[in-house]
């Protein structure tokens, strides 16, 4: 429960009076406020700087150091204050957390120092407020990365238990791990360069033989170039196969972009080997050689920049698409206009609209080759409009795209960050919420025994049980308990609820059967049902109790209730001295049970309408019956 609303708990409890006239069950007893303390000022001396606050302020968070009894360890008897030998500046934000319920991260503070303070005072960092959370997480991540970098430098020594395959993969991915990897890295780079240069030089005219015109070098020194090509392709093939062998997940490796590039780079050669003799497909074969240029993309393994460029182009695809679309629109418009404008003139190059596309593109991009020129006046007018607008249409979206792209890039980063943080935070909040409700459910089980023990003896047990839950918590649980009584339904946790749904048993129990409530005090059978759903598998009912409880369960069957076998097992939670009290009260149990039959005759069986009984027993007689609820 947040600090601020803890102050509103009295209000929520007072407002619960609104449920009372509606409720048909008696309400549970309120938790006793042991020794109403006057609100007193506490002095916290943190390394000489004195902070003062109310005790209740600190009590709002009982699971932290200052809110629990842990602070008693730091109590100084002579000066009557709590002394902490910690940083007073960081303590300010911690104390403010108690006061306002929101934890802030001071930006000038070092992240690790702040984390240490939080850990010392038992506060989890996840409750840092929204205003400061992003900053905190960013700083934390930077710190973590710095630590990781430090670690990696130490880690580059070979880990002893890596097998050959893993070593190879690490060598491929990170060339700096060993000398061999570095050598391999440079060798492959060198051969990629050689291959690309070869492809280029192949087409250069290489001097002429006397009776022929210039031939490209490729045809003059065919053998040499072929050998070069073969060598390169062999190196690439070996490299690809080695990577394939070393990859931890071969399937994923084969699907990755880099391996596809590798395959595309070496495939033309092999296809060419297979197909040299067939003249028909030599045309296609020539086209295939174009793909050899893809070998240049293999450089992206060697260059970080290329990889980033590729990634950013991919992420900016929609912006580029928009640019293309708007350009297409403009081109079509102007091409149409030019075509119709130039239709009249003779020997016009603008033979069709698609033919005018070329003119439009050349003009808009301000290239102006001059191979197509308008001759009519209208054509010239529209042509000039086209070239002017070309400047705008091209020049305007490009910076927009550039800035868009940079904004989207950063936005994506921030959005991913926020999404990752949000999931963790929501999970944390959900855990706290379920913790709260499961704390309530847990306390209900203990609460039964609390109420039981309130009446007769064993003060020690009662004190022990009341210490385990803070007063605030017990008051809150009492409030939830009242709501349960009002609606005659109980809170259960998710699992149990799904179990019940699955069993399909929509049993309409009078969760507060009139009969028993008439005999019993405030707790009534409403408690029975709580106990009923807590089967403790490792329980063994003390034999003396079994008789009485089985009678109870028999009667429950009569009232079309569930057999309360699990009820009996839950009595195991009780300590042994309590079971003896069970025995002595068993006689009273039977009497209570006998008088049951009359009310069921009045109320239709198995329906969910609990009737209030006209006469209520006083609490004094409820001693016996409380036992029977177990």
């Amino acid at each position, binding site marked *: 429960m947040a600090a601020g*609303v803890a102050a509103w708990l009295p209000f929520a409890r007072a407002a619960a009076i609104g449920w009372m006239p509606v409720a048909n069950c008696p309400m549970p007893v309120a938790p006793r406020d042991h020794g109403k303390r006057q609100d007193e000022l506490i002095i916290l001396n943190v390394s000489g700087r004195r902070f003062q606050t109310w005790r209740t302020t600190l009590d709002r968070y009982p699971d932290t150091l200052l809110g629990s009894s842990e602070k008693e360890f730091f109590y100084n008897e002579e000066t009557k204050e709590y002394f902490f030998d910690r940083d007073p500046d960081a303590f300010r934000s911690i104390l403010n957390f108690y006061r306002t319920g929101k934890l802030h991260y001071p930006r000038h503070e070092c992240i690790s120092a702040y984390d240490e303070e939080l850990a010392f005072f038992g506060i989890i960092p996840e409750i840092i407020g929204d205003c400061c959370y992003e900053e905190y997480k960013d700083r934390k991540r930077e710190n973590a990365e710095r630590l990781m970098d430090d670690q990696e430098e130490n880690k580059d020594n070979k880990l002893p238990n890596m097998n050959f395959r893993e070593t190879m993969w690490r060598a491929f991915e990170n060339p700096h791990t060993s000398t061999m990897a570095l050598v391999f890295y440079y060798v492959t780079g060198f051969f990629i360069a050689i291959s690309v240069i070869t492809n280029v030089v192949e087409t250069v005219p290489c001097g002429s033989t006397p009776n022929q015109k210039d031939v490209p070098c490729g045809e003059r020194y065919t053998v040499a170039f072929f050998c070069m090509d073969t060598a390169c392709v062999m190196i690439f093939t070996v490299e690809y196969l080695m990577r394939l062998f070393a990859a931890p997940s071969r399937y994923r490796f084969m699907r990755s972009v880099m391996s596809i590039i590798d395959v595309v780079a070496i495939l033309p050669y092999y296809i060419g080997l297979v197909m040299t003799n067939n003249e028909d497909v030599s045309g296609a074969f020539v086209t295939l050689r174009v793909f050899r240029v893809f070998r240049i993309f293999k450089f992206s393994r060697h260059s970080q920049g290329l990889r980033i460029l590729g990634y950013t182009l991919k992420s900016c695809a929609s912006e580029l698409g928009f640019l293309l679309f708007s350009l297409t629109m403009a081109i079509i418009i102007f091409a149409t206009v030019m075509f119709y404008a130039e239709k009249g003139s003779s020997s016009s190059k603008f033979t069709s609209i698609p033919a005018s596309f070329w003119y439009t593109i050349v003009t808009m991009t301000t290239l102006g080759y001059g191979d197509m020129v308008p001759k009519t006046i209208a054509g010239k007018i529209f042509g000039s409009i086209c070239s002017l607008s070309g400047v705008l249409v091209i020049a305007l979206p490009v910076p927009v795209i550039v800035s868009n792209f940079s904004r989207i890039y950063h936005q994506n980063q921030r959005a991913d960050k926020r999404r990752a943080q949000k999931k963790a935070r929501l999970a944390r909040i959900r855990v706290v919420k379920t913790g709260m409700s499961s704390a309530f459910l847990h306390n209900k089980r203990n609460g039964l025994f609390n109420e039981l023990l309130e009446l007769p003896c064993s003060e020690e047990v009662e004190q022990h049980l009341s210490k385990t839950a803070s007063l605030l918590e017990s008051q809150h649980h009492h409030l939830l308990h009242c709501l349960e009584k009002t*609606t005659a*339904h109980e809170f259960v946790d998710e699992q149990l609820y799904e179990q019940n749904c699955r069993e399909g048993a929509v049993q309409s129990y009078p969760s507060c059967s009139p009969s028993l409530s008439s005999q019993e005090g405030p707790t009534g059978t409403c408690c029975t049902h709580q106990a009923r759903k807590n089967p403790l598998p490792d329980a063994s009912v003390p034999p003396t109790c079994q008789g009485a409880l089985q009678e109870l369960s028999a009667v429950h069957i009569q009232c079309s209730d569930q057999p309360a076998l699990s009820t009996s097992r839950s009595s195991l939670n009780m300590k042994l001295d309590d079971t003896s009290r069970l025995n002595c009260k068993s006689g009273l149990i039977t009497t209570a049970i006998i008088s049951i039959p009359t009310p069921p005759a009045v109320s239709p069986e198995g329906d969910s309408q609990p009737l209030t009984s006209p006469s209520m027993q006083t609490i004094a007689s409820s001693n016996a019956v409380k036992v029977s609820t177990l």
Partner: protein
Amino acid sequence: MGALMVIFSLQPKQRNKRTDSVEDELELSAVRHRPEGLEQLEAQTRFTRKELQVLYRGFKNECPSGVVNEDTFKDIYSQFFPQGDASTYAHFLFNAFDTDHNGSVSFEDFVMGLSILLRGSVQEKLNWAFNLYDINKDGYITKEEMLDIMKAIYDMMGKCTYPILKEEAPRQHVEIFFQKMDKNKDGVVTIDEFIDCCQNDENIMRSMQLFENVI
């Protein structure tokens, strides 16, 4: 290019709308409320000075502006019932506390309400409860009003209950209530019928005393 020009011409209108909303926000946040003096509150309620101090400290902590509006109220109240949806019931509660119906609960309203609930006589408490159930404040509780209240209460339980919450549960509960309270069977419950019936019901009488020592 023409499309771009059209787009640009549309922009100025939106900017005007935005400046208006900024001014509106300035107005709202200027609302502050300072409660009456301690002595006056002491005279009007049944709390001691110290208790008023404690109450105000808690109140002001959560609502520094001095008033609670309905959304904050719903927020605060929902925190006590994590499993269900407490907003409908909080709405009815808010109307019960906001006695002058000005849309916000000031500290005086808050403390007056609490004074009745915690230190008032049984008659006053029952009066308050009747006021809560009577949504349109016409002096009669009809079945529809009671059904709304009942549904709101059952909403707070949430989904995961034992036994499984059925659709008719609130309606059945309302039927029981009316059977008990509506003596002359005219379909509405008046304040006298309500108080009469509650005073004859030991259960209710006992639970009214339950929260005496909350502060």
